[in-house]
């Protein structure tokens, strides 16, 4: 059993490692694109801004023009006729990105150039979960075996008893009147004990699960599809969940963040059809209208932000008050992917709670996950561990886990 699990674990980690290696080359441009551009641009097809395939050709292959445009679109439009035409064509002027260096813009352009045409598969994160299922098959097998053995044992016991009875009769001993098994005190005791153990196990498991809401999937006031936004359109998570690198809460985006894009995007026409969990078809354009209602926006007219009312989303992930959790600790300092805890959110139309958020689940991850020991300067103070890693006294494959630096101590989360 244990070995199976270990195999499964290595498979999973191996796959993940491979994946990360594969993507490392194109990573710069891709990451930059997803953090900065993807909220308004797709590579193919128009979003708030135009699709970016062939962008260099449209600018006559002059990258310096693109640099200037990205750094200050409004300003450059006065100098360049093509830039001016862009501003006229799209209702929302592009946000300036003065923080992007020319190198970084080039990396993005390279990524766009190299990006596969639509239809070609990107080799995604499929096939990671298969390994987990084998273990459950085995437990069924073990269950059947146990049952068979139990039946055999019971039969043998009966046979043994009958033989003893026969032998006693032959010997002439007065046989004791046989007690039916439902009145046999040994059986009763045995069954009681078994029931007590099983019952206790089930009760305590049930009790521990009280208040846990794994797979919780409420109907939200607006049918917001993460699949459409984060999956198909590849908008970076951080664009909307702005707190995720900076603070405790990832934060649910405010209406003005939605409106950044949806002032321009007022219908859903090209994507796949969307269905609720019950299988009813959703009219996505009508859902966008719900957003407009909350924002107090009428398409075509300028938006008065002060008329916006917050949308009352239903909260999925609830930790008890005595648990401290900080997103930036995990996502920024720990470089943990959103999907580790939230599942493949980019494939979910309606979000459901992926993890049970139990303490055991937290602790397990803290035991297994490595910290950014070499990359993050904070850990330079752990001189001893650095030496140990060099000398091989600490297994470098296992590395410095969160647990090793005190990540499973009570007051890391409870205070």
């Amino acid at each position, binding site marked *: 059993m244990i070995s199976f699990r270990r195999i499964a674990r290595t498979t999973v980690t191996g796959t993940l490692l491979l994946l990360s290696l594969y993507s490392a080359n194109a990573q710069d441009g891709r990451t930059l694109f997803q953090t900065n551009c993807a909220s308004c641009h797709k590579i193919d097809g128009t979003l708030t801004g135009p699709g970016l395939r062939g962008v260099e050709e449209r600018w006559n292959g002059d990258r310096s023009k693109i640099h200037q445009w990205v750094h200050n679109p409004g300003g450059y439009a006065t100098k360049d006729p093509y830039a001016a035409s862009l501003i006229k064509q799209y209702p929302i002027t592009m946000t300036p990105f003065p923080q992007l260096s020319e190198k970084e813009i080039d990396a993005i352009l390279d990524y766009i150039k190299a990006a596969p045409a639509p239809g070609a598969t990107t080799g995604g994160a499929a096939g990671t979960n298969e390994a987990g299922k084998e273990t459950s098959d085995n437990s069924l097998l073990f269950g059947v075996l146990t049952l068979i053995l139990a039946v055999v044992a019971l039969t043998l016991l009966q046979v043994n008893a009958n033989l003893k009875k026969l032998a006693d009769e032959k010997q002439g001993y007065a046989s004791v009147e046989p007690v039916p098994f439902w009145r046999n005190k040994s059986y009763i005791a045995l069954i009681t004990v078994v029931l007590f153990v099983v019952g206790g196990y089930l009760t305590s498991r049930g*009790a521990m699960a*009280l*208040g846990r*809401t794994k797979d*919780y999937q*409420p109907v939200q006031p607006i049918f917001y599809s993460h699949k459409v936004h984060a999956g198909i359109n590849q908008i970076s998570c951080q664009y909307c969940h*702005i*707190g995720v*690198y*900076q*603070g*405790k*809460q990832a*934060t*649910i*985006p*405010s*209406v*003005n*963040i939605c409106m950044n894009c949806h002032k321009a995007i007022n219908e859903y026409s090209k994507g796949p059809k969307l269905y609720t969990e019950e299988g009813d078809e959703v009219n996505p354009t009508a859902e966008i209208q719900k957003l407009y209602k909350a924002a107090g926006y009428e398409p075509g007219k300028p938006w008065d*932000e*002060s008329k*916006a*009312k*917050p*949308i*009352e*989303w*239903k*909260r999925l992930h*609830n930790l008890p*008050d*005595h648990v*401290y959790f*900080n997103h*930036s*600790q995990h996502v*920024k*300092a720990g470089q943990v992917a959103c999907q580790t805890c939230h599942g493949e959110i980019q494939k979910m139309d309606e979000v459901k709670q992926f993890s049970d958020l139990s303490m055991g689940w937290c602790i397990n991850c803290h035991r297994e996950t490595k910290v950014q020991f070499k*990359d*993050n*300067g*904070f*850990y*330079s*103070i*752990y*001189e*001893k*561990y650095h030496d140990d890693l060099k000398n091989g006294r600490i297994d470098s494959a296992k590395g410095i886990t969160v647990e090793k*630096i*005190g990540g499973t*101590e*009570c*007051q*890391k989360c*409870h*205070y």
Partner: protein
Amino acid sequence: MEQKKHWQSFGELKQSDAYNKDVKDEFREDLPFVEDEGKNFLDAKAPRRDFLKYLGFSTAAAAVAASCEMPVKKAIPFANKPEDVVPGNAKFYATTYVNDGDVVSVLAKVRDGRPIKIEGNELSPITGGGTSARVQASVLDLYDTARLRFPTIDGKEVTYEAIDKSIAGAIAGPVVLLTSTITSPTTKEIITAFLAKYPGGRHVVYDAVSCSGMLLANEASYGKRALPSYHFENAKAIVSIGADFLGTWLSPVEFNRQYATGRKLDEKNPAMSKHIHFDSIATLTGSNADERYLHRPSETGSVVAALLAAVQGQAVTVADAKLKAGIEKAARELNANKGAALVVCGSNDVNVQIVVNAINAAIGANGTTIDFGTVSNCRQGIDADFVKLVDDMNAGAVGTLLIHGANPAYTWYDAEKFKAGLKKVRTTISFNGKMDETTELCKYAVPDHHYLESWGDAEAKTGHFSFLQPTIFPLFKTRQWQDSLLKWSGATGDYLAYLKNYWGAKVGGESGWDKALQDGVINPATAPALSGASGATANLPAALAGIGGAAKRSGTELVIYEKVSIGANGAANPWLQEMPDPVTRATWDNYVVVSPDMARSLLGIDLNKNGEADDYEVNPPKKVVRVTVNGKTIELPTLIIPNTHPNVIGIALGYGRSAKVGKAADGFGKNAFPLLSLNGTTISFINTDVKIEATGDTYPIALTQTHSRYDTTQGNRTEVVKELTLAEFKAKPNEIREDREKELKPWGGLEKYQSQGTLYPVYDRPGIKWGMAIDMNSCTGCGACVVACTAENNVPVVGKPEVLRGHEMQWMRIDRYFSGDMDNPNVTFEPMLCQHCDNAPCENVCPVAATNHSSEGINQMAYNRCIGTRYCANNCPFKVRRFNWADYTGADSFPDNQGHLNDVVHNMNDDLTRMVLNPDVTVRSRGVIEKCSFCVQRTQEAKLKAKRDSRPLVDSDIKVACQQACPTNAITFGNANDKNSAITKLRMENPNRQFYVLEQLHVLPNITYLAKVRNRDEEAVGEKKEHA
């Protein structure tokens, strides 16, 4: 029986029976079922079967309740998120604590729109980031349920339009604006403009605790009606005659900081200032003095005159030999340090202060320790002005009275006359934030904002400006009072526009204004040169003649003083009420302070007798006395406090208020303001004609002195405090170190004690190891840290009945130790908090491992794991663990757990008051232990900040709450594994003074103490080493 070196209570000093019985138990109360003793167990109140029934029922009930459908929680984001706000991240806004004339530049920590904590502003050169208990507690006042929530006319709610209209027609006749001291330059301009509109109008400044004696004396001596800046840091010899400058006098936060500068000790070159204190009752400042002498309050004049004579080399004519020696010694010190000496006096008598000015002139204080170039604006009220106003009011010569900040119906000695006068004023308008004694007599109440909701500026000292900006949207329908004045004087534009306009030009436009707000302060570009004042001493002979005959030889005299915690107007703040007074260690009440001597003659309590001391000390009810002064009587319980003159009693101001100003003020103590008197020109805080008699009644006082004792087999108190005189320290600097070395010799000495003193393995601690150091030489015992800790860590208020039972919850306490004889002992303050022992005795007795050790050296407490056995508290040698005996915070799901708590505690759980809670710290429910966590929420945040920036942690990332609040920088905290951290350096630089409390127990605390050094030449009385 051997005389011990340090003692906290009389029982301890005398090793009484009750004391020895008391210290054997961790908890003072017997367990509940002891009363059923002798009965059959099943007949007991909660027999086994009932217990099982309850157990079964509650388990079933809990299961049913918990398996009900989960409530749907909502996540509601902003509609339009402000760009720089990240929900869940705290923001700090620079603002200014303004309470009448007290000005302290602060930062308000704002979480999700709510200010939850006040921190000192380190950019202010006056306070340098220090605060006081009152400043720390002021954030709770914002959420006070007793605040006025809307403007009223005759007690009925009205709109601002209506009240503006009504007042516009009602302001008539001679207009008088009565305020407490105003430090804001813009407000002064607005007042001038307002009064200009009403010819004949005037502005009267009135301070509840007046300094007009000093103001007038400085006018007489130097022609300047102003308070100078004092520079205690420049003084090598400090003589204070009744000035409690570390506790309540003028600007204590500033003075604490300056004073500690001269008290910090460099081990290589030991030198410190010498502080000699003359006083009549025990005060915080007196307790910190190197030498203290007692005199009658009526003798203040003679003492000052004698000191002047002695400084000038003339003979001292004081009858009391001890006092005479003290004056001569003080004069010697002052003369020896000419140009680096300072004399301050707390008297409000003009003549006394004129003589003090003459002494300061004689010892060269002007321009060195006293600066008249930069004057302090903290008190501006002249008593005579107010006397005239009251007369005018009674004569019907005041048509309109507008009141801001002042509350004379409570704080004026002749309140009845003021009230009578108020009735004759046609239009009365109060801007006060609460329905206080004066406001309830006014026709109009136009409540002002709390300072955390206000705009403003303040000039604490010439050229030192500090700004106020709102940190929260106004909670109620209140209005900034400057806006009201502007409106009523017909100005267009509001106060914010006025303020921006005023400052815009001065600070260089919009960006300069933004920077000023961001910094919170504007300081003089270069530190202004100190300048003295020269003046005629022509007034001196008259002044000397004026104080000549005051001294009395017999009878009882009274001193009316301000408490360090609540002051004149802080009684409604539960945090301040529950903070033990540094000197008396009492909470929630005022009382009559008497000396052990007077206790013997008046109350018949002889503390030298075993039983009587115990009866006094162990039982909370204290004997009540009736004090009669000027025909007014007051009945109060007595507290016996050493260091009080045998013929003097002391009573604190600020008590005896009604529920209208707050539940915490309701019914606690008695009002002592009526006992003040007017000595012609100024208010006198002493009274020489006092009748005092015991009534035979008793009244309980919640005294924390005898709680949290730890003089048991686990460790002896004498090992907790270490104290030397400067002479001893110079003669033998490594005495403490040698003692430690000798004691630890059997286990390998200091070096190897950690590994050889135990059977347990020694753990590696790579990475961070938190450590703290407390310098007992810098600590003045002011209590700012105690309130800061309460605010930071959601420490509950338990109310007086619970304090009486020893259930107070503060994570940090400041122990007061006496040493020497009973009547006139030395005082040492020692902050005591969880020592975060590396080999903690609490950890290995916990049956559920709720308390255990972190790899960073923090003794952690997991509340949700705690089942409340209290074994840990029992096993803690320092008694710093606190148990939630009831549901003080309203955190339980079951409402019955707090039934018997008093209204103050229930009020703390009001939705409004709960806004002050720190969301990063769990609110504890009933039945769990809690204690100092080394502000783990702050250490975690600091680490995260460093990780996000990918760099090692540095000192500036973290300041724990007590450390931040401390005005004297007595507390150092940081990573002891970091060679460059302040804590490591401090430990390296002070090898001789440092010690660990109860070191011989091998608990290995993470808090280092630096021993107290008293600047004395001789060995102190009664300080013979008891283990010698």
